[in-house]
């Protein structure tokens, strides 16, 4: 029988029923590997449901640091869901390992010849050991983690440490949990040849890293960035941004003297109101944000137009999920690029930022407030479900204590005294950004009417054509300023020799897969440069990258190649020069997918039709 052999490079897939307490056990598994210094990438595949449906948790271990979804099937399956046994058996790679609860024998017709079965009578052990039916269920999860420790050679001390950390303050639970781990460990050690041919070994590759989900990092960014007012309405996968913000703010934003809160989070009646709260607060000089996902973005568009036209600095966090409509609410995509770039009626454009890992969620999340206030316009942080809701290995978060918030061009009472006549929409500096005042600043100067209607330099309503044109042209000028101050795209070059220059543009969570794909291609002798877009409007370097390459692929996670469209539209690129690589089945894009698409296209050259129609798997 073939057995997959690998140290520190494999994929384990857990199949569970949701609502059975498996999540914390699975996390313990991932975290144990992480604490052994190994780069890991755990990902949840969960349904839009609270209890009773199948869920999967896939952990990729990669000492080489490849942390995108690998695809192609797992090396080891922990099959704890009787409903999905057949499917889970099919998913396994040949030579893989199938850990299942052998209390009930497997149906012979689902059993594959080319995989290794590891039957552990978990239910039976629980029935013997525990009285309480709830415990019987919960400890099943801990038992398989214990078994995996023996099978994969996970340091038992590390697991014990995790249990102790998890139950800090509930010490009574520590011993029973360690006991359950031991039950599993012992059964596996006695009955199988441990460790298996796939296993882990301590490493130093993830030593100073942290393991954190993007939404928590984004929330910390908002907290450190000085956000004080948040309007919100729950929607997966964005809810945990606000929940984390509140969790940390309850500890870190309390006035030491009065015990009162230095923030206000208002749970609104819908997304219209949620963004309205942020806009009202921003108008009044507070740093304000809201977080949402697809359907919420649709509802917010009228207000986004107001904030663009009335020039109000809000931060909108969009944790994207698969659309259209309710789409696949618990699956990931990058499907809102165009909807956000041009949200609302009339000639509107918005500043977008694309974080690709938790550290960037934190940094861009904080920076978004500076940029919004500097540019006096909404800034939309484009995260996604994969980044937001899954734990990722990331460099530790850091904050420079010398940082001062850039509150932008705001006149205070003394400064108002010095200006002869205040004009809210006078472009004094020629960068398209005018001076604003907060309500209540000065007894006689600086008051004006904020509105979504056309107005002159002094904020007086006007429908005169030339005044309108002057104003909207200035807004364009402001956008040019934005392109200069936004985070630059990250460009990586490889050695090309004399061959044709190939480039790959990507953004957000496509980055991990893209970086690995470039390595895969390099190994096959194909050099590819990359350009990771971090913001819209695009800086000059993006146009330059396209110009510098003979062929450019744009890899992204939506059906219509939305970033490619935006590039074509904004940079006036010939569409033939940008080849789309599109993945949109709701699971994160993989390196294999990108590299295969690029290779196929290269071999089939010259493919004049620039569309690679992609049925993803």
């Amino acid at each position: 029988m073939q057995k997959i052999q690998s140290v520190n490079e494999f994929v384990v897939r857990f199949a569970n029923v949701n609502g059975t307490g498996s999540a914390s056990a699975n996390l313990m598994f991932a975290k144990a590997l992480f604490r052994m210094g190994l780069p890991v990438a755990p990902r949840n595949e969960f349904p839009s449901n609270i209890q009773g449906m199948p869920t999967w948790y896939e952990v990729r271990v990669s000492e080489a640091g490849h942390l995108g979804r690998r695809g192609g099937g797992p090396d080891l399956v922990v099959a704890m869901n009787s409903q999905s046994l057949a499917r889970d058996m099919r998913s396994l790679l040949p030579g893989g390992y199938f850990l299942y609860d052998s209390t009930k024998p497997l149906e012979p017709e689902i059993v594959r010849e080319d995989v290794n079965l590891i039957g552990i009578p978990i239910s039976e052990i629980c029935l013997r050991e525990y009285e309480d039916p709830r415990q019987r269920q919960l400890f099943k999860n801990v038992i398989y983690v214990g078994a995996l420790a023996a099978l994969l050679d996970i340091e038992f001390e590390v697991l014990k440490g995790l249990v102790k950390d998890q139950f800090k303050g509930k010490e009574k639970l520590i011993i029973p949990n360690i006991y359950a781990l031991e039950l599993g460990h012992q059964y596996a050690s006695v009955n199988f040849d441990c460790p298996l041919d796939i296993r882990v070994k301590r490493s130093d590759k993830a030593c100073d890293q942290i393991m954190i989900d993007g939404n928590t990092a984004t929330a910390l960014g908002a907290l450190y960035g000085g956000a004080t007012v948040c309007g919100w309405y729950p929607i997966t996968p964005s809810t945990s941004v606000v929940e984390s913000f509140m969790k940390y703010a309850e500890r870190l934003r309390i006035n030491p003297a009065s015990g009162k809160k230095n923030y206000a989070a208002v749970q609104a009646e819908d997304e219209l109101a949620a963004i309205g709260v942020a806009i009202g607060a921003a108008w009044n000089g507070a740093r304000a944000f809201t977080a949402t996902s697809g359907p919420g973005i649709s509802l917010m568009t009228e207000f986004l137009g107001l904030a663009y036209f009335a020039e109000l600095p809000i931060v909108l966090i969009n944790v994207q999920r698969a659309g259209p409509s309710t789409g696949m609410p618990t699956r990931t995509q990058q499907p809102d690029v165009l909807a956000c770039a041009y949200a609302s009626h009339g000639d509107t454009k918005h500043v977008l930022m694309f974080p690709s890992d938790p550290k960037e969620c934190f940094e861009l999340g904080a920076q978004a407030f500076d940029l919004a206030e500097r540019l006096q316009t909404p800034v939309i942080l484009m995260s996604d479900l994969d980044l937001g809701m899954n734990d990722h290995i990331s460099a530790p978060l850091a904050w420079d204590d010398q940082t001062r918030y850039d509150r932008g061009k705001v006149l205070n009472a003394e400064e108002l005294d010095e200006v002869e006549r205040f004009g809210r929409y006078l472009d004094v500096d020629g960068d398209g950004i005018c001076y604003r005042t907060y309500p209540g600043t000065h007894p006689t100067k600086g008051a004006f009417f904020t509105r979504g209607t056309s107005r002159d330099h002094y904020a007086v309503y006007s429908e005169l054509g030339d005044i309108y044109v002057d104003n909207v042209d200035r807004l364009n000028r402001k956008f040019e300023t934005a392109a200069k101050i936004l985070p630059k795209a990250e460009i990586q070059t490889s050695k090309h020799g004399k061959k044709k220059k190939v480039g790959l543009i990507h953004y957000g969570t496509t980055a991990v897969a893209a970086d690995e794909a470039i390595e895969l291609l390099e190994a096959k002798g194909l050099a590819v440069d990359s350009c990771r877009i971090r913001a819209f409007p695009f800086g000059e370097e993006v146009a330059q990258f396209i110009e510098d390459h003979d062929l450019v692929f744009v890899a992204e996670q939506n059906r219509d190649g939305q970033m490619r469209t935006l590039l074509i539209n904004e940079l006036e690129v010939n569409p033939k020069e940008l080849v789309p690589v599109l993945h949109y089945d709701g699971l994160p894009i993989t390196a294999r997918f990108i590299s295969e698409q690029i290779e196929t296209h290269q071999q089939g050259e010259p493919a004049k039709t620039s569309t690679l129609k992609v049925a993803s798997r």
Partner: protein
Amino acid sequence: MSYQKSSFRHPRLPVNDLGLTQQAYEGPLSTLCAGCGHDSIGAAIIQACHELSLPPHRIAKLSGIGCSSKAPTYFLNKAHGFNSVHGRMPSIVTGANMANKELTYIGMSGDGDTAAIGMGQFAHVVRRRLNMLYLVANNGVYGLTKGQTSATADRGSKSKKGEDNLLEGIDLATMAIQLGATFVARSFSGDKNELVPLLKAALSHRGFAFIDIISPCVTFNNHPGSTKSYDYVRDHIETASVSDFVPVKEEITSACPVGVTCRDICLHDGSIIRLQQTGDDYDPQNRAEAISAVEHHKAKGEILTGLLYVDPFAEDLHEVLETSDTPLNQLNEQALCPGNDVLQVINDSFR
């Protein structure tokens, strides 16, 4: 209109405690139709703010879209204004109020802006008990879009084209009482004597104050058969109680007129709403009674005006959320940013 408003003022115009004449509270010349009820509301707001000696620049005026929502342009020139989008002023003012608890917030809306497109936001700003004054200039019609029937038009009321309104009218005042507003009144733009003291009391109230002001649209809803015309309202008005507003400083000197029974309601700042009892002994601190009184008069074809309900000591949203005493928009890095050391501890919790 192209002509300028005269800025000439008599030198001996009365000044308030801040030394300001009423002129300091005015705005540019209105572009609403001559005789529009909304302008009378504006005039009453100017008078009320002046008499209360509110610093004009410490007021924020917010609105949605409609003729009524345009009206704030024409009063309180020194105050910042925000003319937002149709039906969404409540969320904007919520955010504004969260950012700075020290300003006085006046939200001005219409019956379309509030009772139709903005109904959801209205209901929720009421139940949030935001500290603000919310005014609906209620003309039973969409003025700005030229005369469509609105959701507050009474059943049986006739449109300008002569069509009967067959649907039930929404009563925003009883709704506000049910949803938890802590100051609710109804008034008429044509009755300044009633409206100004109500505005003063509402502006002094801490919490959500709501006044439904019947404000006739002379252009689209002032004809016979309309129940929101000047003539109809004058003929059918019934006062719950005549109220007077007694500011803190006059509390000791002002007395109830001889031969009248008065009920004094003390507000949280020490000022008083003095109600002269009319025929029946109306108790505006009883929620259920207030609702039944409105319904009772409606059944008789009457419009009950005056202070309908007040709860002077209820918590407002800032108290519920326990926000800091310093307005949030005045906090700096020191109060807001926990610093790198704390961040390193947070990092450790993710290892």
